[in-house]
């Protein structure tokens, strides 16, 4: 098992009141899965993604990646773990405005002090994959939303991570561009055998995944895999829930 959360609770202090964004949450994700995490706003989806990616630590319980407990790693070890294993795609791209497309994509490799030549070839390959090879020298602000999102994905893939965490990668895009991104993720999953965990509100987007985990109030409400059940039924029930 690649990713395991055991009784994970994340508590924030809202003023003086403790508030459980996640409450005793258990999930297991295998290598090579394409998982969609869904749930109403404020359910704790982004929080979960941050814990899995080692950006933050749970208040209680543990997150295990390949049997290593995240909270046992030092700050620096967690950073190094992130650098080599996790690729993040953020909802709002999070590109660095003062670096060019090429430099943005190269960032995780720069952090790892990879040789210039290797950086060059790897970045070019990724940009070509994303269809952005002619935008390499541009600053992010001249790109469209879809292009920026593709740069963000390229950056997430730069260090060749073992899994990709995407927080609403299509949230800011129109249907056509959203579909492009989702097809890209599917391609990565199918061809490169990437493990992908994607948070989404979009039922159509979730439809691209093999497995849908529904979260509400910080706990897992349902967990459906394509082989065992009908994801469409899950989606339908989600829709009903959503409309209420």
């Amino acid at each position, binding site marked *: 098992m690649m990713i395991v959360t055991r009784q994970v609770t994340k508590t924030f202090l809202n003023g003086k009141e403790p508030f459980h964004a996640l409450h005793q949450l258990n999930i297991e994700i295998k290598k090579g899965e394409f998982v969609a995490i869904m749930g109403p706003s404020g359910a704790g989806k982004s929080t979960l993604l941050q814990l899995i990616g080692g*950006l*933050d630590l749970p208040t209680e319980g543990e997150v295990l990646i390949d049997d290593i407990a995240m909270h046992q790693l030092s*700050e620096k070890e967690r950073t190094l773990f*992130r650098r*080599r294993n996790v690729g993040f795609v*953020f909802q709002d791209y*999070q590109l660095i*405005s003062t670096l060019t497309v090429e430099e943005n994509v190269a*960032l995780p490799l720069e952090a790892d002090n990879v040789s210039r030549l290797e950086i060059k070839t790897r970045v070019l390959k990724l940009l070509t994959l994303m269809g952005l090879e002619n935008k390499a020298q541009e600053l992010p602000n001249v790109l469209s939303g879809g292009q920026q999102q593709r740069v963000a994905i390229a950056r*997430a893939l730069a260090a060749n991570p073992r899994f990709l965490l995407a927080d609403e990668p299509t949230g800011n895009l129109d249907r056509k561009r959203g579909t492009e991104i989702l097809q890209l993720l599917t391609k990565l999953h199918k061809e490169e055998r990437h493990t992908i965990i994607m948070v989404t509100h979009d039922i159509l987007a979730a439809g691209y995944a093999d497995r849908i985990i529904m979260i509400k109030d910080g706990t897992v409400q349902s967990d459906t895999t394509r082989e065992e059940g009908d994801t469409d039924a899950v989606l339908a029930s989600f829709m009903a829930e959503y409309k209420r």
Partner: protein
Amino acid sequence: MQSWRVSWRNIKDKKIRSVLTILAIVIGVASTLATISMVQTTNKWIHSFTVDAYGRFDWLVSSEEGAFDERWVSALQATNGVESAVAEIMFVRPLDRIEGNKTEAPFENIRFIGVSDLASSVLDLKVVDGQFTSSGLVVDQVTSQLWGIGVGDRIYLKSPSPNSSPYLEVAAIIENTSQLNNSRQARDRLYPVDVFVPLAVTQQLSKVDEQVHVIMLKSDQSVPPDQVKRNLERAISSDPALYVQRSVADTQLGARGLGELYQALYVIGGLGLLIGSFIMYSTVYINVTERRRDFSIMKAVGYTSLQIKGHILREVVLLAFIGSIIGIGVGAILAIQLQAMLLNVFGNALPYEMALKEAVILSMIAGILLPLIAVWSPVAKASETSVSYALRRLDNTSERPKGKIALIVGLFCIIGSLFITHMISFLPLFIGLALIFPYLFRIVHWLINPLNRLLFGREGSVASKQMLRTSRHFMMSSTILSFGITMLIYISALGSSFYVNLEQSSSTPVVTVKYANAISSQQEQELQQIQGVRQISTYASYFLPWKPQHTQHSTRLLEVNSAEQSFIVNQDLTSELAKFTKLLESPNTIVLDAEVYREWGGKKGDTFKLETPNGIKELVVVGTVGWGMANNNGFVSQRTLEESIGLPHDNMAILETHNPTLLKETLLAKHDMPIKSIETMSEIMFLSQQQLQKTFGIINLVVYLSIFIAAIGITNTMFMNTVEYARELGMMRAVGFTRWQIVKLLLSKAFMIGAIAAVIGILAGLGSMYLTVIQGYYLHLPLQFIVPWKDVFVASATGIGISLLACLLPAYRAVKWDITYTMKYE
């Protein structure tokens, strides 16, 4: 009312930002207040003690020959229109030892000031211990402490016969007074210690029995001055050697050499204001940039631009108010402390009054205007935020230097500054540098980048790319820091040049003596015969009143010298004067030194009005000579001195010898000719060097202070940079940058700011010095271009070190942030 409460909540919510804004106002207000107050206080101090020391009497009666009979006192006292008359005689004698003081007395000279009436209400000496007697010594508190003596103690004087050294007993201790140099001159063995003695005692100590050098007169205010003068002239008409002169308290003579200090103070005051405004600008700029989304939403729901402006300005006004109050407190404390330090350097022991009122008013105005001006453009920008702004995410941050006009105007300013022979030339120079700074920044950035990459590796190269694309943020603090460094380098280059200059002339083996009496040709021969004297030259030196053309109210004193003398001490001056020998041959002509010439305000060929013993004389100015830093001389021919001015006798002697120190002692012991002052060349130079060191010391302190203020500017820049890019820093942490790598990234930026500022600052500083040398800025002073390597090193280290230090706090904060928190940060 509601909206003020909203503003106050905003201020409290953004603590760091509010504190920085308040800090900015405090810096601006405090430096304005301290600068204005210090300049005014120092001016007031000089003015008050000059008036106190030299302005008590209205008229002086002296003799062409130096000394004259003391019985004239009573005659003049009885003159109609004279309220009070005091006679004075002055000479220097060496001290042998002090009673009870076991340690061997230092080689010290005493200047005895014999006074006909110690108790005169015009002198107003305040006795603290003992009382005036007919034979006792009167010392001030400074001296009593220095020598550790009280009433009844004896001091022994050196004398030619060792068995019979004369002594004097202390009769009274008086409060420190401006009329003795002791309490307004830095204590130094080379200056004689001033003491008062009754006139009778002078007979015991010198060969000038029953003689005086000057009679000082206070006139009855009800009688018109012209009337008094006529009465006095009539009273002395029986002795043709006597003449009446106005008593002038030349307050500007005391302020000589302070010009540079004031300018340095104004520079720091201006810099404080500039940096304060800059911090204000950048905090408010970033504040409103971050809130543009809010503003666009406010607009969408119906707020007008004006309402949005009001919204931000209310916050600014609140902060300005708090900042000004704190700033005035800080500024006042700073001013009082620095003032005490400054006057301590000048050796002031007299009470003085801080001039704070105007400074407080002006800095209060600055505290209100500065924030409003500084925030004007960001506020205007914010209020014009379009409703659709919220739709765009990223700002256009890529920039390039703006247009060629700035470059051309900048170069023009720099070149223009070459032609201004005044310290004000720094203004166009700095403005020019500021204008071309973006270009310099890029050039130096390019030069320094290899070193940056070497030091900071990959993080360095990422930082350097980011810096070039957001240079606007870094340019300002780099500029300010580089100004500080420019000043540092310039001041130290100038200082070392002066120093070398002084060192070269200090080896001249001469003794300069100012005699109280006219030197007769027989006495000149006697001096020539003293053992060790190789050559002697005598000349005249008299202080006479004149008025600059533009300010008819302030009367100045000019030291008038005979031009024929050969100044063994100053070959340059001698050869320069030689050029005017022909012109000076025609009667009533004068050569002025460049300083006086400038102050006078006329041009060659104009007439210069001088108040002489023979009345007001119009002398034609035939030329100027340059001579050192602070001078106050006019040169005329012997014939003009005799025939028009009416002062035919020499009273100064320059003696060339193998052993100046020994000759000085010999001359002092030989007391048939009263000496007013005596110095060897190396002593004069030593004193000048000390004065120079002290003055430059204070200027340097001020310069370092300005560098410190620049450091606050850099901290602010880095802080704002980390706040503005907090989200991006968080993102970098997310993709695998360690904390140390983030710190390195920020350190690299700070290093670049510091190094760029240092390189540009050093070049500009050395450039200014080079210009100064070429122009002969200090007018004919043979300055040398000396690269002060030590200070170049210190400046680079300071620039870079200060930047790195300034970056530590922001860096610390940046890595302390939670990644997940920063990613949410708006």
